[in-house]
Each structure stands twice: as C-alpha cells, then as structure tokens.
C-alpha cells in the first residue's frame, strides 16, 4: 500500500486501522479475506443536526469510491435519505428558463472549468439554481455532489435567489480599521436580516466581500455591480437603505 506521494506508509504498531486497510484491495475495490470491521456508515449528529457540512473531502479521498454526497440546499431541516423529501426539495425550487443554459454549456465545451461556468450561470440567473447544477453535472458526467462541492467552496456563488439590490459591504483591512463592522451591523439592523440573507420582499440581499480594492474610500459599500459608496458611517448606511426603499416606492 502506498500513500499519495508514492512512499510506502510506515506500519503503525498495533493499529487496528492499519489491519483493516491491509484487508482491502483498493485496485479491485473489495475486501480481502474476512471482513473484520466493515461496520455501518453514519454521520455524527450534534443536537439533532448533522455535523457534516458536505466539504466532500471524504468523497474525494475515499480509496474505494463508496461515498457520494448529494446536493441538498435546505440541509439542516431535511434528512438525507428519503427520496420523497428530496423530491420535495426539487419541487420547491422555482421554475427556471433553461434557454440561457446553452451559454453555460458553450463555456464548458470551450474548455473552461466549472468556476467560469458558474459565473456565466450566476450572471444569467442571479444565483445557481439546482436544475442548472444538475444539468452541468450531466454535461460533464460528474456526480452532482462534486459540482455542488465546488459551488459551495467559493464564497461568491449563491444557491438561493437574491434580492433586487445586493448590498456588498467591504470587509477589507482598510475598511475594517475604518469601522466596517459597524457598517454591516447598521445595515443588518436597518434591513432586519443577518449577513447572507435576503429580505422577505426580495428587495435587499446583504453580503460581505473581502476587498473591492477601493481602500482609499474606506469603508466602502457596493450596491449591485456598479454603484459604489465610499466613506460610509452607520448613519449614511441607514440613510442609503431608506433612499433605496423610497426609490422603490416611487
């Protein structure tokens, strides 16, 4: 047996794990001899919630390829194993127009990776709908879990639809020392939502971003893609929300 870099693993004395590993033929993916500790797989629960956050590491490193992680956006509330509940999740997803998906496929066939395909998807739909992720998985002949694993790794991808105004509060260093935590708090208070959420009327989504590179104007807030506000204070943050609300009413 060998580890990743080709060197043989040192044999740990008295290790049961080693005994088990020795009994598996990874090439043929079967147990050799008596199954000493096949056991049953389960996920650890903490206070009724799974501790697993689907990082997909186990799936990727499993030598026997026996783990598959499925996509399940409403994760903590749902159990994983009942097909009916998964179907309910699917049914609860809003209907989307799959026509723009061709652009995503074109991007993939052009040799770009998943990240670029996700960007194209998000530019079109505003988020990554489950249906699109499934189609991408089918296009690339990958398990959906793998696609989901990539989507959740990058903070810019969203699995839920966003509001009309996406408020990005910059959390760069310059903004931090200029009081960005107070700005986020002011937005959160004024909108009544925590970071990462969307208001019930689908008007506002509150997000943070690592740095927009406009440090001289710290603290900086960006609304949508192009509307940047510099030198914010908690007070101007609240005013900005009220202004946008007024614009909507008008």
């Amino acid at each position, binding site marked *: 047996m060998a580890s990743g870099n080709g060197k043989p693993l040192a044999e740990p004395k008295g290790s049961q794990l080693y005994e088990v590993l020795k009994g598996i033929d990874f090439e043929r993916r079967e147990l050799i001899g008596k199954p000493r500790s096949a056991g049953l797989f389960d996920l650890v629960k903490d206070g009724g919630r799974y501790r697993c956050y689907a990082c997909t590491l186990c799936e990727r490193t499993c030598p026997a390829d026996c783990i598959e992680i499925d996509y399940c956006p409403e994760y903590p509330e749902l159990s994983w194993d009942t097909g009916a509940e998964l179907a309910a999740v699917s049914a609860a997803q809003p209907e989307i127009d799959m026509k723009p998906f061709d652009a995503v496929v074109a991007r993939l066939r052009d040799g770009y990776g998943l990240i670029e395909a996700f*960007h194209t998807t998000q530019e079109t739909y505003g988020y990554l709908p489950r249906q699109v992720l499934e189609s991408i998985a089918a296009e690339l002949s990958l398990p959906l879990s793998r696609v989901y694993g990539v989507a959740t790794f990058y903070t810019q991808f969203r699995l839920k639809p966003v509001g009309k105004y996406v408020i990005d509060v910059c959390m760069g260093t310059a903004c931090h*020392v200029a009081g960005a935590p107070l700005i986020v708090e002011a937005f959160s208070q004024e909108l009544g939502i925590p970071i990462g959420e969307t208001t019930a009327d689908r008007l506002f989504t509150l997000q943070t971003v690592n740095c927009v590179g406009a440090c001289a104007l710290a603290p900086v807030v960006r609304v949508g893609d192009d509307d940047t506000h510099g030198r914010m204070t908690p007070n101007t943050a609240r005013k900005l929300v009220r202004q946008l609300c007024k614009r909507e009413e008008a």
Partner: protein
Amino acid sequence: MATAISRAARVERALERATKADGHISNDAGRELRICAGTACHASGRLAIKKAIADELERHGLSDQVAIVETGCHGFCQQGPIVVIRPQGIFYPQLKPRDIPRVIEKSVLGDEVAEDLLYRDPVSGDPVALEAEIPFYALQRRLVLALNGKIDPHSIRDYIAHGGYRALAKVLAEGDPEAVIDLVDASGLRGRGGAGFPAARKWRFTRATQAERKFLICNADEGDPGAFMDRSVLEGNPHSVIEGMLIGAFAIGATDGYVYVRHEYPFAVERLRIALDQAREQGLLGPNILDSGFDFDIRVNQGAGAFVCGEETALLASIEGHRGMPRPRPPYPAVSGLWGYPTNTNNVETWANVPWIVNNGTEAYDAMGTGTAKGTKIFSLTGKVTNGGLVEVPMGATLRRVIFDIGGGMLPGRHFKAVQLGGPSGGCLPERLLDTPIDFESLIASGSMMGSGGMVVVDDTTCMVDFARYFLKFTSEESCGKCVPCRVGSARMLEILDRICAGQGEPTDLDRLQTMADDVIEGSLCALGGTAPNPVLTTLRYFRDEYEAHVLEHRCPAKVCRPLIRYTVDADACTGCHVCFGACPVNAISGERKQAHVINQKLCTKCDTCRQVCTFDAIDVDTGVLAVAEGRAS
C-alpha cells in the same frame, strides 16, 4: 545568419503594422484632459465629472480640439476623482461637477489655475499645481506604473506609441529563449507575489521539462484585503502584463496562458479582455506572433472569492474546475501543473517588470534596490494615513519614507501605532522598526513579510488585539479545510482572541496562543496556514502590553473592543441639540432639548453613531474595570 536577419525584419514589419491600430494616442504636449478611471475614482464619481467636462467643452466649441482621455489608476486614490490637464500637467483632485466650468475656463481656455481647487500640501497648506511636483508622486520611482495615468488602457495603439511591445519584438527578433532567461536571471528579478522566488530559476525549471504543452499563468488573484496593486496595473496598463507574459512564454516555450483574476475586479477583467482582443487583432497574440512563428494565446479565468486560490497549486485546481485546495509539492508545477503539464506561475507585477528589463537592460534594473532585492516594488498604502494610494519605490526604501515622506504621515491629531505588511500572512510592525528597509530578508527578520504589497497603517484608534483577531478571522474563514492544524487550529486561536476581546481572557491565554501559532505554522501544507498566525505572533511580540491590558485589566486602550467600553454624555459639553437623540438606532438616548442627554447603558449597542453625529464632542468613550462594572450594573 540569413534567417536571423530576415526573422528580425519580419518582426519589425509586423510591429510596424500594429502601430496603425485604431485608438487614441496620448501626448504629454497635447491638449488633453486625463480623467482617472480607476476603481476608486470611479466610485467617487468620475462618470459625472466626465460628463460635466464633455458638456463644458461642447459649450465652448472645443470638443474636437481638446481630447478627453480616460486613463488607468493614477494611484493617488485618496484624492479622487482626479483630473490632470495637459500640456501644463495641472493636477486637480477631488473635483465636483460644479467645479468643472471654472477648471475649463482657467486651465483649458486660459493658462491659469483655479487655486482653491488645487491639491494642498498637508503640512504647509500651500497649493501645489503640477502633478510632477506633488511629493506623493515626486518621491516615487515609477517603473511598472510609469504609463498608468498617462495612456488610455483601452487603446493598444497608445501602448505601442509609448514603446509598448518593443521588448517582445526584440526578443522575438533575436529568437533565443535561453538568452531571455539569462537576462532575467542577471537582473535579479524576484517574484512579486510574496515569496520572492527568483523568476528566472522558475522559468528555467519549466523550460527544462519536456512536454508537448506548457502553461504559463498570471496570478491576478489579489486576495489580500487592503491590496490593489495588481488591480491598478491591469486596469491602467493591461498590455504591459500581456507583453511580459508573451516574453515569458517565449522563454519557457509555453503554448497556452491563463490570467487568473479576481471576480471582484470588474474593470480589470473588462479592460484585460479588451486588451487581449486588440492584441489578437494586431497579431500580437495567437498563431505566428509578429510573423515570428511563435504561437501563444491567453485566456481569462475569474476567481470566485477564495483567498486560498492565490496559492499556486490551489489556483491550478481552481482553473481546472475543482475546489481550490493546495496539494503537496513535489511534484512542482514546473514539472506537473495544470492538467499535468509543466506550468509556470508569476504574479501581475512580476510579469509587468519583464518588458522593462528587456528594454532597459539588467544594469539599469540592478542599479535600483539592495543586494538581494532588485528593482522596485509597488505598495498599496491604505489605512489611517493622509495620502493613501499606490506607491512604487525602489527596493530598500524605508517604511518611514513610504509612510511619512510619500504618504504624508498620519491624519491630524493622530499618532502612528503600527504598519501591517503582507496582508493576513504578514505582520504588524511598531514605530521603532520604521527604519527597516523594504526588502524580502529584512521584513522576514522582523516577523512580517513583503507579501504582495499591502501596507495598512493604523493609528492610536486601532486596537491591536482586535486587529489580529480580524486577520485570524479572515484566514480561518478562508482556510480550505484540508489540513487540520490550519482548519481547527486557526478557529481555536480565534476563539481565544474573541475571549480576550470580550474581556474574558485568562493570563495563560497568551502563552497558549503562542504555542498554537507554532503548531499551525508547523502543521500546514501551504502558505496560508503557514503564515496565518503571523499577525498574532507579531502583535504579541510588539504590542504585548495591549493584550495584557485586555486580559489583566479588562481594558481596551484604543477603545475599540465593545464589551470593554462605555459611551456616556459629557453633561458640560452637551448642548441638548437633540441630534444624537434622533440618530440613535436603538433609542438609547433620552433628554429634553437644550438639556444634557443621557445614554441608557442597557439599550446602548455601542454602534458609535452618536459620537459621529455629535458636533460638540460631548460623547465620551471610556474603558477599564470601572466602566465595565458600571456598564453591567446599570
């Protein structure tokens, strides 16, 4: 020999053709209004300024005599939006649309200056009219940024007219890849992304590996919060990066290139794409570049908000479409990188240095810098400094020169406390180390690092414990999760810092932080984990007294950590103007008009709004055991 001559002639002819591309050519002696179109100036309203200028020129019937040029970042971001008037070179900062008629009247129609609109020296208060005379610019040595703010980044013709693609033509005409590597080797160019690995040595490794395809990557995933050098170079002069990559590709024998750029930089992405298209049109990219038989093309890949993707192997995984997780080396990417092919990665600034070295030779490059670090380095100077922006100085300049001479020092009434270099991987240096020369080795010895060039200055209003906690929070959130010491260790360290900031730290916590930091450094695979504890270690080393104040006295000296501070109204100073009453978001302030107000400590969330709106300086912030006890009791 005959083929060499004809090859040189072919390249020369092809470059000559490219000079006839469409687009504006900037001219220092011509009548031009240069508007900075960098991200910061854009955010402070350059579009309104541009419109006002266009309208005003139209009104005077000057539209076809005076050119409006939208340049890349001028670097003096604190002063945006910036307009420079040519031929005089008059610098107008912080313009408003209503100022434009006067600016045009005085400096375009006439030959005067609108004095009240000029930049004022922060010390003497005297107006400075010319861009070249402003200390912020005059004390810099701009090499990579030389054309930033001068040329139109949307025009390849402008770049070529200013000597662009000359270096590539020279290299292709000579046709000797080894000579290019030797030249870069002799110049002593070291990677500008942080680690400072000699560029030529990396190139040589990749060149030596035999493969049918080789990749070349430009790392523009400038993840350090508070750093924007790469963004400005891509926004202001994208062709210099493309040219550098082309020269590198020729030297290495690479066939395909990628620029991996942050998605948070929309202007940089847009201008880079335009530049690539223009280069392709002019035969500077694609098959048979400049008729020399050399093929190379560049694609743009965007990141998606993962700091770890700035790490070389994680970046490769991300381009391939995986989770951006680093992998162990060897095999080095020079042997097996992107899709298993040999791959060479350098960052934006490194690539942008290459054409300059080819054009000006190693001696000129060697003349700048110290014994081990040559050339210049760009820093993004931000934080509590008077003149923030992009600063390019020769290696070996001291921190004091950058912060005080170029950056104009601290804001009025504030005292320098620390400078943070290298982002979340770097460290905080105190005042007594301000004379440290900026080079790779000196900074490492001080416990910090060069990093990619973020330089955040903080004053006495920043709590160093909170500052360290900020960076650790960042790295623990950005940890990819692969190595347990980094994933769990950074989270555990963060818990300790949270506790200290909440006034619940224990005396043993400081030693515990130290031990855990060593473990995280020791047990992590990549540089993210290997440097994540640096901000904690350096603040522990240089600002231990602040940690001790938090732990032993439950006091935050900078009055930042909210559980340890209390807001009160100074009854003598309060005029009862009622402004804070209206501004308080939680209605914690009570009081009649014209009478001193009172803050209800139970309701107060310490959001700082009242202090900011008070014009009479009547809101006091205090900290210490007494404040905490009283705050809890009431």
